[in-house]
């Protein structure tokens, strides 16, 4: 197992795609970057993806992003460090989460690594957290010795994507070989530290270096590819076996199509809808729109932020991450009134003849089941329903009608459905429903959603006209009950 940490909440705004792959995060808490809003957001994400939360205090210097040493009085210094940590503690408490560690940022990290005075002062500032939180520091640094003497719980940290000097300081960012970006190099670099406790420095010497956790810079352009590759290569963070479904395919240059098994079962639908709900709740910003249809999800994403391969990897990862507190949306059963009178059921006689059924039997068979909505498509508000009795399966009409009435209830092949508006259509028409299936004036233009159920309730012609009048005057409320 490899332990990966990232500095986050610093304004790069890519946390939601990194979190599924990392073990710990260090959250900017107002010193060099970050405010209450970003801290809330990142803490919530960390909790969702079970990532350890660290405080990432810095010299109070937003202008230089905490990358410059600042002269401060001892009192001022201690005050700002403690304020930054306690601000994060307050926010973490709101989310019912916990801080696990502290990691100094930027110039402060470098100063405490080489100056005994600065190290002592920093440890004095965080002394009260000694028994609560561990401390991320570099191996063989000045602060290491002081912290160990004072019984701090020390975690050695190495940098996954930075080259080292012989004295175990990082190669300056001003030099061209400071940062490792090629995945193979990074894996080699980490493996050497992890397996042999040695780092190959830029002068090609092997120097002893211990590390409990590896930092990947989240602002590196290919940070997401790096954490994905490390995840695959080192089996970090419960790398679970791949599942047979869904299958992933590119669809255009900004779409990915996920397809589950080609069986119209309610178990299949649950897999599709559960994943749909999960990705919406994860609120992955690179996702523009998700279109669910029966056994598939088409996800439109921002191609400027991720390519297909990286996005596919992220989705696979999200699919396998089981979330404990994921509660499924409530599913309703809607009682849809249908009038099967002959003036509406214009094809009842044809079905009766072809399928050798009495008309009353057709109505009984059609109103008996509870149909599940597998998706909405074809026309605005058209529901794809599963569960039609086999005895009612019948071919579409050989010549489609140019205009099927709004509300017409029909059977086409193995499916039944309702035309939400006047439309050409080839289904056999058996009745009509007086209700609206699509209303642009409503926030949710269609009352039902995929996963819900429909039960057809037979009504007389008189009831049809009554409901129809109530619908037009806006006084009709469709009956429904919570199904599950």
């Amino acid at each position: 197992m490899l332990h990966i940490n990232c500095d986050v909440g610093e304004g790069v705004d890519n946390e939601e795609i990194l979190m599924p792959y990392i073990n710990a995060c260090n959250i900017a808490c107002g010193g060099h970057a970050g405010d209450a809003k970003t801290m809330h957001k990142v803490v919530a994400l960390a909790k969702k993806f079970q990532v350890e939360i660290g405080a990432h205090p810095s010299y109070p210097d937003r202008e230089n992003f905490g990358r410059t040493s600042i002269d401060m009085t001892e009192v001022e210094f201690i005050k700002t460090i403690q304020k930054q940590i306690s601000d994060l503690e307050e926010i973490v408490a709101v989310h019912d989460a916990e801080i696990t560690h502290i990691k100094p940022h930027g110039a402060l990290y470098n100063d405490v690594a080489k100056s005994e005075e600065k190290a002592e002062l920093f440890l004095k500032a965080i002394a009260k957290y000694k028994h609560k939180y561990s401390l991320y520091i570099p191996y063989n640094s000045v602060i290491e010795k002081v912290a160990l003497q004072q019984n701090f719980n020390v975690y050695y940290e190495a940098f996954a994507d930075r080259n080292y000097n012989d004295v175990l300081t990082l190669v300056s960012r001003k030099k061209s070989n400071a940062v490792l970006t090629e995945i193979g190099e990074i894996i080699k670099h980490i493996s050497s530290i992890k397996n042999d406790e040695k780092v190959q420095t830029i002068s090609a010497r092997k120097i002893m270096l211990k590390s409990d956790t590896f930092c990947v810079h989240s602002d590196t352009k290919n940070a997401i590819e790096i954490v994905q590759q490390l995840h695959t290569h080192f089996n970090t963070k419960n790398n679970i076996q791949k599942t047979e479904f869904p299958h992933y395919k590119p669809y255009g240059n900004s779409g990915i199509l996920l397809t589950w098994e080609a069986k119209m079962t309610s178990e299949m639908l649950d897999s599709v809808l559960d994943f749909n709900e999960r990705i919406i709740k994860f609120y992955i910003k690179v996702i523009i729109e998700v279109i669910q249809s029966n056994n598939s999800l088409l996800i439109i994403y921002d191609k400027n932020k991720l390519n297909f391969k990286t996005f596919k990897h992220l989705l696979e990862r999200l699919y396998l991450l089981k979330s404990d507190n994921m509660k499924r949306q409530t599913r309703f059963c809607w009682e849809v009134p249908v009038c099967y009178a002959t003036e509406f059921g214009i094809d009842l006689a044809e079905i009766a003849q072809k399928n050798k059924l009495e008309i009353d039997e057709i109505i009984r068979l059609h109103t008996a089941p509870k149909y599940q909505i597998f998706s909405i498509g074809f026309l605005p508000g058209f529901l794809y329903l599963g569960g039609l009795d086999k005895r009612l399966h019948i071919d579409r009409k050989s010549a489609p009608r140019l205009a099927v009435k709004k509300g017409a209830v029909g059977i086409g092949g193995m499916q039944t459905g309702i035309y939400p508006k006047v439309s050409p259509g080839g289904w056999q028409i058996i009745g009509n429903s007086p209700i609206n299936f699509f209303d642009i004036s409503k926030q949710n233009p269609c009352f039902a959603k995929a996963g819900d159920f429909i039960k057809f309730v037979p009504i007389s012609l008189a009831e049809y006209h009554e409901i129809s009048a109530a619908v037009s005057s806006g006084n009709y409320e469709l009956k429904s009950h919570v199904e599950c």
Partner: protein
Amino acid sequence: MLEFLQSGLYTSIQDLGRFGYRNYGVPIAGVMDEYHAKLANHILGNDENDAVLEITLQGPYLYFYEPTQIVLCGANLSPKLNKEAVKLNTILHVRKGDQLEFGARIYGVRTYLGVKKGFQIEKVLNSCSFYDGITKKSRVENGDFIKYETVSHQISSNATIAPSKEIFQNHQLNVYKGPEFDLLSQKQQEQLLNTNFSIGLNNRMAYQLNELLENNFPSIITSAVLPGTIQLTPSGKLLVLLKDCQTTGGYPRILQLDEISITILSQKHTKDRVQFNMISTS
């Protein structure tokens, strides 16, 4: 306000489309040729999603009730302002009482008329785009009125932009493999990529191609489709779905056009020819 003394063959109001309602079965709609619609808005200094008029083959006859600035981009349908020929791709100053009409088609199929600050149309589900059943109308009719903001101080450059003509001359459509492409046999794939297809019936929902492709595989479970998706129908006919297409379909999706190719195809007319050029997704 603008009055349609004559509506033209098929004129509608469009913006870039209606997004976020596909899960309810609502099509995207929106301008067919995004390139020229955006260009018209850019020349006017508008937001690129502002509502424009999409004019098809035979233009309308328009009467302007207030001064404004307009720009025409896309197909050349011989526009005339008060009987005088006017240029495409440049700001035209319109006064109260001016009349705009169109004549012979020189090239292209769809012209976009943008107006300063966009046409003032009520949005339905976050979009102005006409679509039957969502908006009151699917096309404008004789005698209709559309509002725009009066612009009296007509200070602007007279520069004309000269956009590339390539969109009208190009017959190559870039395609990605569709989700069901791999179901095609080697022979079908070759036929698909080597045929010079001619355009049959076409409208805002789809363009049919006349040449048939051998088809021996069954339909799929209904799944999402996109503008630019090419379906193979049971009769072997290829159907290129466009902006008004339904949100889902049951025919195999064998190819997918890239964005610029949707624009190119939208300017093609019945009997024009096109060929597919396979590209790969990033």
